């Protein structure tokens, strides 16, 4: 509809008779993603969904690793009874793991997550700024 109006030159100055919204959409690649997100266009929603999914995947992968590591310990004690009585020096193995070693591991998991999720946000911000 609006396309023909632009292409034919004429002696008189032509006036575009289009809705302002059409013009807005045609600005194409120059349009900031932030505006897409603000106006909740399909594209904006898609960007947000991508961000949320990336964060969710990261959280789930760290959570799953922690669950396997920590949640696996009672199963280990249950199915390999020898681990209940094994001693490291004077300290029983379960006490060493649950009383000491598990805490640095928990902190490392948290530290890794913080780094990664900030990375995701940095990349997302750059991606949005680039357009």
């Amino acid at each position, binding site marked *: 509809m609006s396309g023909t109006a632009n292409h034919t030159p004429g002696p008189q100055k032509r006036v575009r008779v289009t809705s302002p919204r059409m013009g807005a959409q045609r600005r194409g690649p120059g349009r900031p993603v932030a505006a897409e997100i603000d106006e909740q266009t399909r594209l904006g929603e898609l960007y947000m969904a991508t961000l949320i999914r990336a964060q969710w995947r990261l959280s789930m992968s760290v959570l799953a690793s922690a669950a396997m590591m920590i949640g696996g310990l*009672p199963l280990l004690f249950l199915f390999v009874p020898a681990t209940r009585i094994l001693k490291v020096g004077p300290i029983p193995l379960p006490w060493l793991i*649950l*009383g000491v070693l598990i805490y640095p591991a928990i902190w490392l998991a948290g530290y890794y997550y913080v780094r990664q*999720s900030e990375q995701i946000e940095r990349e997302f911000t750059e991606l949005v700024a680039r357009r």
Partner: protein
Amino acid sequence: MNTSFSITAIAAVCVLTLTIGALGFRLSRTTSDFYVASRMVTPGWNASAIGGEYLSVASFLGVAGLVYALGADMLWLPVGYTVGYLVLLLLVAAPLRRSGAYTIPDFAEARLESVAIRRICSVLVLGIGWLYLVPQFKGAGLALNAVSGAPMWVGNLVVAVVVLINVVGGGMRSITLVQAVQYWIKLTAISVPAFVLLSWWMHHGQPVPQVPSPQASQQWSRPLSGFGGVQHPVYATYSTLLALCFGTMGLPHVLVRFYTNPDGPSTRRTTSVVLALLGLFYLFPPLYGAFGRIYLPHLPAGLSPDSVTLLLPTAAIAGLTGQLLSAMLAGGAFAALLSTASGLTICVTGVVDQDLVRGRLRRFTGNDARAINGFRISAIAAVAVPLWLSLAARNLGLADTVGLAFAIAASTFCPLLILGIWWRRLSTSGAAAGLVVGGTLASVAVLLTIFDLVHGGWAGALLTQPAAWTLPITFLVMAVVSVATPQHIPRGTARTMVRLHAPEALSVNLGKGHP
């Protein structure tokens, strides 16, 4: 036992708490100061404050008591308390901060755009908060009784009064400072005697832990042995772990503390510092349980295992050293009580104030009452009820009651927060149904446990550790009802999702409600 050192230490902690509170009071003038400490709190202070607030008497005395009484399986408690913050970090920390909500009812109302949901959440916060406050007050009575022989109610009353003065007088800013200081007091108070005991043990023959009957002695140090009459230890271990890991995010005094972070990323970083601080602290309580089995194989009559930490130094090391160390631990225990009780009181107060008092006060006084007066009236209500409960209900165990509060939080707020933050299709009806079903199931299980109406077997195990079944049921109800009622998905969900997840560096419209 010479008690004057311990009494002095307890008095010193109370006076110190009140003094710091009073200093904060001079700085806090407006209601917004009262609520969020004007968000001028730096991350270092914040992480210490979170740790200080979270490490309650259940951690300081209760963990050692349970390890002493029930053996190796109880080592999971401090692990669960710490992993709870990891789960919170992974799933809710940054989005929750970005939501701008100060309490869970605030979050629920903003996310689900429903005042009814807010009311349900407020009731749950009150229940969880009061349930969590009772053992703090009882622990005070117990500690004072153990070090001085004073009647139980004296300690309950002392803590209630100090907390009330502090909260009413200083509000949140003083509490943030107090909490941060409390963490370091607690860490010093628990680590120094532990190191002294450890070196004493190394230099005096390294005796092994003893349990009256020789066969049980081996069971005590081994996991899943059912020592102390724990039935179905595998189920109990997993259900406790689940309640602690997923209940932490729903504890009323936890979210409030996050509000003092300036933005999402700083909230995450603060939380990872918290993990380190908690891990450091939890190295010590199990040591007291083990040393208790070495130096205090028979508890004095009439004292609960929860006092083992306080009695240990004098039992192990005769003379002045033991007395000074005991005094240090008594002071630390009081620091633990005061900090958690203050944080919980602040938060219960906030809920009572916003949802119960302020509207009514306005109606009575024709808008004359200042908001701060409502806050003060609410603080009295927040303390009075659990104080009465702690005096009336005599047969509740310390860490057990705390565990039940975790279980209710895990079965209600945890699904609400996780689905609310990550799932667009959560509907108002789904959230309400889940909260009501999960809250009812968990509360019934808790009440039956508290009033000692469950006896052994699988029914006993399921009711005393309800989280393993109530948590999945709540998730299921929320999800199924939400899918069935797509017409009740809040209209602003997309905008709310942007607010929860968009990085701060992005300049997007975050919708209403963001300050």
